[in-house]
């Protein structure tokens, strides 16, 4: 058991992720069914509701607050713990090394750590069900001021919302670790006979997904930290002045909710591609395999994957068309949004061209791949409507948007996941899933989701706003009740069909037909090579290069975190009138001197690593300077606090505390790394690569401090 829990074996970690996401998806489905039930039977009394949620369902009737909590938890669980985890972390960790002929992931301990952090994050989120007030009700987007002002704005906005933020912050850290691992593994650990352009498309899509995760999750982490401080340290990043909530005047001042949208959607839109890109790669393999043809236009698929990743990072503003953003910016974001249709269409046409003239085998995996193409195109078409600023003014926050993103992000990605489960199940468990029940599951699901989400577009066009717990109280929406009843029964049907899959999964693991080594006659390495160890022995320089690539990825994530703070700093400063200039203590400047001297000493030591005595003197001196910086920073905070400047005093002070606080963690990590590298004894010592990686990290830390000083000196 202990070996299973703390394993660094990529296959076992992949399975751990898989079972975690199965638990998550079951939870998410149950919550969605409850929501749909409440929408059409808002006054229904069910005794077990009250047993489950004594406060939220008093008398057995779901309260509007509980409805919003169910919605929030459904969205969060599905987006983070199903769509982000299964296709990338579960399938990726299991199959990436097998597909590229590596012996494992580049950083095995990081693989395990990222899983356990994800599991911890999920546990923290579920804990919100059991705290006073229950789960949060601000939606998976956690828009302030609702999410920022505490329990005064609703029962779930007390500890429940705090747990939500903590859960997402931990998830972000886990996702960043996973992304670093994927990038280093793909770039550096491929078998020597496998070039990048020979990799399966799954690997390319995992790679681009990892890169955009590396950019998106740090920004969400930064936004989450700021939100947490607004809630608990009386800062005002997102909460405007003179806000009146439930007859309480909120004491915050000068913040802007627009800032949260700006940061959140920088992550939120790429998240769509984090969810769907791995599915695109997977179905490319599946369609090729079951059409008995190589995928049409491999190179264009690779370019389109990068194109989607590139453009996906530039369109977050289309979620803010109605926020008061300049219409000129809206035009830019709209054009970029439309442009994503080009690489998406390239992929779609390539899938169709692969099918054309192929000897198609309609296995369940293939059906789900075809279903993916279908719902991807359907959901993509409605995206053209909401990508237009003028149409979005009307459609924003209606069920049209809910239908759109469920089809393109939810259902399409989940069809990709199902396709992957049916395709890779024989490799994962050594047995076959039952094909007949698989097809029953596919057609049931396909009919169910179209029956559920097609009418939802109509409800949106009719002006039905989302997030209303009881829309029937509005006379103009009452005629939509039959439509909603139909959707609710479609949801029940779709949920019921998933029981078929679950039974098939559980039964087949124990009693399914024993799988042949390559039952699909596929041509990728995970099938053709019984074990990755059969591939050519890895190059000895690979771990070294992986360390440098991993470092570059880590520094990219840190860059994005501080870019997010920098962007928030500029927006908060420009959009409010309460900005008080912060006089930086002199010690912050001497801190730069200490860090730069430390860098110079590290370089001098690095050049003499062959002479351990000199090396140790230089590096210990550098560690002492780092320690001096850390102590000095504590002194600076104490000095500021003594003069009455705490995070809640002014916005600039809040930013100073946040950014230097995160920097403090980086510097402390740097000092520990320098000490550990210096103390490493023979025969491992000296290790030039470890030394180089540590030194480069420290140089980056010094440069980062310079960036902070310039920011605060010029604008603070």
């Amino acid at each position: 058991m202990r070996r299973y829990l703390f394993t660094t074996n990529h296959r076992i970690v992949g399975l751990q992720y898989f079972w975690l996401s199965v638990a998550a998806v079951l939870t998410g489905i149950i919550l969605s069914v409850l929501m749909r039930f409440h929408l059409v039977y808002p006054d229904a009394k069910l005794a077990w509701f009250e047993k489950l949620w004594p406060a939220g369902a008093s008398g057995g009737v779901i309260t509007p607050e509980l409805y919003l909590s169910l919605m929030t938890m459904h969205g969060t669980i599905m987006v983070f713990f199903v769509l982000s985890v299964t296709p990338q972390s579960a399938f990726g960790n299991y199959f990436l090394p097998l597909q590229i002929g590596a012996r494992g992931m580049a950083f095995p301990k990081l693989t395990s750590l990222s899983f356990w952090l994800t599991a911890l994050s999920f546990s923290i989120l579920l804990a919100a069900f059991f705290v006073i007030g229950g789960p949060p009700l601000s939606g998976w987007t956690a828009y302030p001021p609702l999410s920022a002002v505490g329990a005064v704005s609703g029962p779930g906005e007390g500890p429940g919302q705090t747990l939500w933020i903590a859960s997402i912050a931990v998830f972000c850290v886990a996702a960043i670790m996973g992304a670093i691992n994927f990038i280093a593994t793909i770039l550096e650990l491929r078998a020597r006979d496998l070039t990048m352009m020979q990799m399966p498309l799954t690997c390319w899509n995992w790679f681009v997904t990892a890169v955009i995760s590396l950019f998106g999750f740090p920004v969400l982490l930064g936004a989450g930290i700021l939100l947490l401080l607004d809630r608990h340290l009386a800062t005002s990043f997102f909460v405007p002045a003179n806000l009146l909530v439930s007859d309480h005047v909120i004491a915050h001042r000068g913040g802007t909710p627009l800032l949260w949208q700006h940061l959140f959607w920088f992550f939120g839109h790429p998240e769509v591609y984090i969810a769907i890109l791995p599915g695109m790669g997977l179905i490319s393999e599946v369609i090729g395999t079951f059409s008995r043809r190589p995928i049409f236009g491999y190179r264009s698929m690779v370019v389109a994957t990068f194109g989607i990743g590139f453009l996906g990072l530039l369109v977050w503003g289309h979620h803010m068309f109605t926020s008061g953003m300049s219409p000129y910016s809206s035009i830019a974001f709209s054009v970029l949004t439309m442009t994503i249709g080009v690489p998406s269409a390239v992929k779609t046409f390539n899938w169709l061209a692969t099918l054309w003239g192929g000897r198609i085998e309609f296995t369940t995996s293939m059906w789900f791949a075809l279903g993916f193409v279908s719902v991807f195109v359907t959901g993509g078409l409605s995206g053209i409507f909401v990508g237009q600023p003028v149409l979005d003014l009307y459609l924003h926050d209606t069920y049209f948007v809910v239908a759109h993103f469920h089809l393109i992000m939810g259902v399409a990605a989940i069809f990709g996941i199902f396709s992957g489960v049916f395709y890779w199940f024989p490799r994962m468990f050594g047995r076959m899933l039952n094909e007949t029940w698989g097809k029953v599951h596919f057609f049931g699901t396909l009919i169910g989701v179209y029956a559920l989400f097609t009418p939802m577009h109509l409800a949106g066009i009719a002006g039905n706003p989302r997030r209303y717990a009881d829309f029937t109280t509005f006379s103009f929406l009452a005629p939509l009740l039959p439509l909603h009843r139909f959707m609710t029964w479609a949801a029940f049907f779709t949920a019921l069909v998933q029981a078929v899959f679950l039974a098939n999964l559980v039964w087949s693991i124990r009693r399914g037909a024993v799988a042949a080594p390559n039952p699909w006659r596929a041509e990728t390495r995970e099938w053709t090579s019984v074990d990755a160890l059969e591939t050519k022995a890895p190059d000895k320089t690979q771990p070294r290069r992986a360390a440098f690539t991993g470092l570059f990825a880590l520094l990219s994530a840190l860059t994005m975190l501080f870019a997010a703070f920098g962007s928030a700093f500029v927006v908060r400063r420009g959009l409010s009138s309460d900005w008080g200039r912060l006089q930086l203590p002199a010690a912050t400047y001497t801190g730069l001197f200490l860090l730069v001297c430390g860098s110079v000493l590290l370089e001098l030591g690095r050049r003499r690593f062959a002479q351990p005595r000199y090396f140790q003197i230089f590096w210990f001196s550098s560690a002492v300077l780092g320690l001096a910086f850390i102590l000095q920073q504590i002194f600076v905070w104490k000095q500021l606090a003594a003069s009455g400047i705490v995070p809640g005093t002014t916005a600039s002070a809040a930013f100073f505390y946040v950014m230097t606080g995160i920097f403090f963690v980086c510097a402390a990590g740097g000092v520990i790394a320098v000490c550990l590298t210096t103390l490493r004894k023979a025969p491992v010592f000296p290790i030039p690569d470890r030394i180089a990686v540590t030194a480069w990290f420290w140089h980056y830390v010094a440069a980062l401090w310079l960036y902070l000083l310039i920011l605060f000196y010029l604008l603070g």
Partner: protein
Amino acid sequence: MLAFLQCVMCFRTAAAQQVERARTLNEGIYILGIPPLCLLTAFAYMAYRRR
């Protein structure tokens, strides 16, 4: 000029914009938008070098 190509509602909104507010948000967008593009280019280059 671009504003004249828009519908009346958008033109009105554009005309009513506070220049400073729009500039601030644009600066925020640049600060958040440019680093990932540079970094993505770097990763694409790394992939190209290791082809």
